[in-house]
């Protein structure tokens, strides 16, 4: 139901009646707007915020093309809320728009940037590099990629060059920004999510290979066909121990799966896959009537 209201400027605006809870509130709204025009006194409870803050002047100071009066009042209310007021001139605490400290956007839970490095940690890493430790060793030590170590060294060179030219030191700016961005000052707590990455190499055309029926096509063979580095090489690179599964390989690896039951009467066209939510186990029934279980490994992330 659309209602036409005259706002204090005399312009007609269409308002959905459902947005107001009661009609009395509506009349209060109209009277409140008229009150704004007539005098800067305290309005009714319609605005539900300190009308000292939402005076006619501040309403008018917002540009008209942003939205209508109701939206601008709601915006002013949001500005007065305690979280936003704390953020107005940053005082040192951590906050953002998202629910978590490391989630800046409320609607996108997959964007969670890692904590950046502080100036002190960068100085430490570049000092170690200058003492003679190589980039690869440093990357493995701080669990990141060598490109980042090189970047840190570059930034250190720029900093030294500026210092040698006696440029003004932006200490206050750097301190405030580092606090705001939630910088990590301890090298032990650094987490870059860079370490030990394998690129996902996709193919434009699919590969075909004919093998005999009883031949089991294992992930290692798949990696060899795709010319991917073997698991030993990767393990040696990252100094990690244990079997790893290459992601692009064929999913069914019968080593980790246990055959639980067999029922020849249950053969069918379809493969059923069930996930046990409490454990994370994967139960599978294939076309031959065999039921497999892939237990959730204890060392998964």
């Amino acid at each position, binding site marked *: 139901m659309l209602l036409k209201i005259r706002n204090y400027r005399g312009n007609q605006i269409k308002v959905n009646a459902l947005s107001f809870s009661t009609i009395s509130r509506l009349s209060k709204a109209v009277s409140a707007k008229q009150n704004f025009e007539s005098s800067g006194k305290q309005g009714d409870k319609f605005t539900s915020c300190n009308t000292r803050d939402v005076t006619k002047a501040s309403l008018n100071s917002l540009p008209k093309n942003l939205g209508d009066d109701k939206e601008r009042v709601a915006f002013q209310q949001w500005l007065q809320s305690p979280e936003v007021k704390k953020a107005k001139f940053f005082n040192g605490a951590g906050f953002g728009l998202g629910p978590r400290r490391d989630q800046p956007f409320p609607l996108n839970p997959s964007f969670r940037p890692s904590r950046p490095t502080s100036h002190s940690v960068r100085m430490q890493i570049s000092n170690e590099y200058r003492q003679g430790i190589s980039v690869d060793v440093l990357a493995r030590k701080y669990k990141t990629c060598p490109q980042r170590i090189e970047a840190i060294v570059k930034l250190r060179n*720029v900093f030294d060059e500026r210092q040698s030219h006696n440029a003004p030191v932006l200490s206050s700016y750097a301190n405030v920004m580092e606090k705001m961005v939630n910088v990590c000052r301890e090298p032990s707590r650094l987490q870059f999510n860079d370490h030990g990455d394998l690129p996902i190499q996709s193919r434009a055309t699919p590969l075909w290979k004919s093998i005999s029926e009883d031949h089991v096509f294992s992930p290692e063979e798949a990696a060899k066909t795709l010319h991917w580095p073997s698991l030993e090489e990767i393990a040696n690179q990252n100094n990690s121990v244990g079997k790893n599964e290459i992601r692009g390989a064929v999913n069914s690896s019968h080593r980790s799966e246990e055959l639980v039951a067999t029922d020849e009467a249950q053969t069918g066209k379809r493969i059923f896959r069930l996930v046990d939510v409490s454990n994370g186990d994967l139960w599978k029934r294939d076309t031959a009537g065999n039921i497999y279980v892939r237990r959730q490994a204890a060392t998964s992330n």
Partner: protein
Amino acid sequence: MRGKPFISLKRMLLRPSWNKFNLYNIARKQLPSPSSGTLFQKKWIAKRETRAYHGPQLREYQLKNSFQPKVHGVTPSHENKNPIPFMSQMYAFIESRLDMSIHRAMFASSALQARQLVVHGKVSVNGLPEKRSYRVLKPGDLVTVEPKFVLHCVSALKSKNSQPASSEANTSTEKDGTSSNESKANPSNEENQETSLSKSTLDSKLESGMHNFSPKPYMALMAFIPSYLEVCFQTCSFVYVRDPVARPGLTEVPSPFPEDIHALAYSYYIRSRCMRQGAAHRQAKRLFPQRIHDPGFFRGPRDLYDPKKKSSKNSYSERYPVRRTKLPKLV
């Protein structure tokens, strides 16, 4: 006729900006309902919403030309069974633009302001001045912005001198007319002498950056640095470490929208891409060797394998040829 406002409480389009109205929109944004309309309508709305945030300074044809259908992902060598959000990488090619990276490194309050910084010559890449905002950064590029202008972009309007506060959209207009300053990189331009008001404002901002820095109001609500940048605030410089990449459960492309919205926008753009390109062109592309982004394969510092030394005279790289001589006049 005036176009629609850039930031509007009614339209609620999200922009790459620290504007308080924009932050309010991000805080209260609701995604379009999944049962809204036809498939094309969903794709269109997804494209509209994501384009408003990712590269609003680009025209539609510019984005279609620079659109890359190949999305890169990465998997760790240890076991991680989270799904990789590939579709969030749709706008990754925009993030590697110079102006967007400057905004992500928190040296400018919006992407448009960052673009203005570049165009006005306050930015240098790998030591050489760069005036092209469309420059795509390669891994390892070092970008330096002049500290005076960074502080102007980032600090609060009402400084101690209490200069008249201009509107938030026009924060960079003051530094447009500034003539010779003590800038290291750029030579002094002989333009009309601006009033000493703007000069003193810039210098006061620089002093406040040294002693008592007050950030832009509400800037802390959108304070983050993406993982693919390494930023040094002391020198107002950053390094583009690598391209943003999708990981199990995580994206590196900063975006307020979840993956399904990006997937719809991707399906919109891939359609027009296929329509535009001919079959022969596509076939030729398949024959090219694939460029593999292997972060574990470190070739060393760029000077070793990239022997092209750029002199200061020829500041523009060969990858982006710029016309040096004037075209002959058509009579």
